[in-house]
């Protein structure tokens, strides 16, 4: 194997920053581990060991001279963002085909990671469409679907505020659910909608970690037990927070 042109530390740092970014936009764990290994190998590293869970990546790589480098990365939050994920995938594929100077890629990685817009208007449309459609999907009337729309806008605002202020995800989820519950019951009281439960389920689809639950089972069946268990636990706790949040308006308004 050819002598690597770049030190193991730099290569591993780059690979792991890429991996961290991938987890942050919702990539599966085995995909992330594979990416780190592939990049290190493309840069001429002899052996790479990676362990990753949703909140941490640890990796050690060894160059042909036997020198080892170890790095770790901590991930605090993640949200599905396919546009970013696609760019990261393309970047990693390019690096594997042509391993350029790690320092020169830094800037590109930073550009991909940076998202200057805080309130995405298209995401707001997505919230409205998703909530109204799933209200009908679960058996609500068209009145319920209409009532779900303004609640979805509020959920979108709350969801965007989490990123802005970095509040605890659990607290924000419970708060979202409680707010949605008050509004849904209010709409029904005012005679603007028929069934508060249907409105709630449509809006809840936006914040419930249903896809996370599927991912967790999938990861566990694939052998990523730790990551799968953590995801399972997180989705259950988030669902519990949502249920508790909705219990508050029911207790108060009856």
């Amino acid at each position, binding site marked *: 194997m050819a002598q690597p042109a770049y030190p193991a530390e730099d290569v591993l740092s780059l690979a792991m920053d890429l991996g961290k970014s991938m987890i942050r936009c*919702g*990539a*599966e764990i085995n*995909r992330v581990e594979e990416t780190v290994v*592939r990049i290190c*190998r493309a840069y001429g590293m002899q052996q790479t060991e990676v362990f990753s869970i949703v909140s941490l990546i640890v990796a050690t790589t060894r160059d042909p001279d036997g020198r080892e480098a170890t790095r770790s990365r901590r991930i605090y939050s993640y949200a*599905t*963002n*396919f*546009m*970013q*994920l*696609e760019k990261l*995938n393309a970047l990693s594929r390019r690096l594997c085909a042509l391993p350029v100077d790690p320092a020169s890629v830094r800037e590109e990685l930073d550009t991909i990671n940076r998202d200057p817009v805080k309130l*995405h208007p*298209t*995401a707001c*449309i*997505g*919230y*409205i*469409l*998703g*909530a*109204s*459609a*799933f209200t*009908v*999907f*679960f058996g609500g009337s068209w009145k319920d679907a209409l009532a779900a729309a303004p609640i979805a806008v509020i959920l979108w605002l709350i969801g965007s505020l989490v990123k802005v202020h970095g509040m605890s995800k659990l607290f924000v989820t419970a708060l979202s659910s409680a707010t949605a519950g008050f509004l849904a019951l209010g709409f029904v009281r005012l005679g603007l909608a028929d069934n508060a439960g249907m409105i709630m*389920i449509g809006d*809840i*689809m*936006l914040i*419930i*970690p*249903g*896809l996370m*639950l*599927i991912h967790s*089972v*999938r990861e566990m*069946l*694939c052998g990523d037990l730790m990551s799968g268990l953590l995801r399972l636990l997180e*989705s*259950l706790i988030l*669902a*519990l927070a*949502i*249920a*508790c949040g*909705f*219990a508050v308006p029911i207790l108060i308004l009856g």
Partner: protein
Amino acid sequence: MDLKQALILILAGAAGTCGFSLLFRLRKKLIPCAVLGAVLTLVVYVICLRFLHHAFFQNLFPALFGALYAEIAAKVTKSPATQYLACAIIPLVPGGGLYYTMYHFVTGDMASFHTQLTQTARTAAGLAVGIILISVLVHQWRYRSLKTIFEEE
């Protein structure tokens, strides 16, 4: 379920998927392809609802179909399969089940809690197993045909 209900289910599911694809910040060009995947998966789901009676199998076959569609769509449009997969199964994801499970738990209705928990677990297992079966097959096929770096070890 009659034809009208099935149509409403599929149309609402398609609109919902469209919404979620915006939420997930899917590239706009890929949205039609992703929504088509969800519609076809829902058609398979509706057929399965009609003929199968266990939540695991009702979700296994749509997941198999959705995952296969995602792999093909990814090949055709040259973009990761994950995004198509997530969009195809989003209407089937047991968000409602998960919520009702926890809701019954909070309100102390243990009989309903148990029913919902079983149903949600079966749905999640069906979807996950379907997705994994396809991904294992695709991996096998791809790595055999390309002789990738993994075989050097």
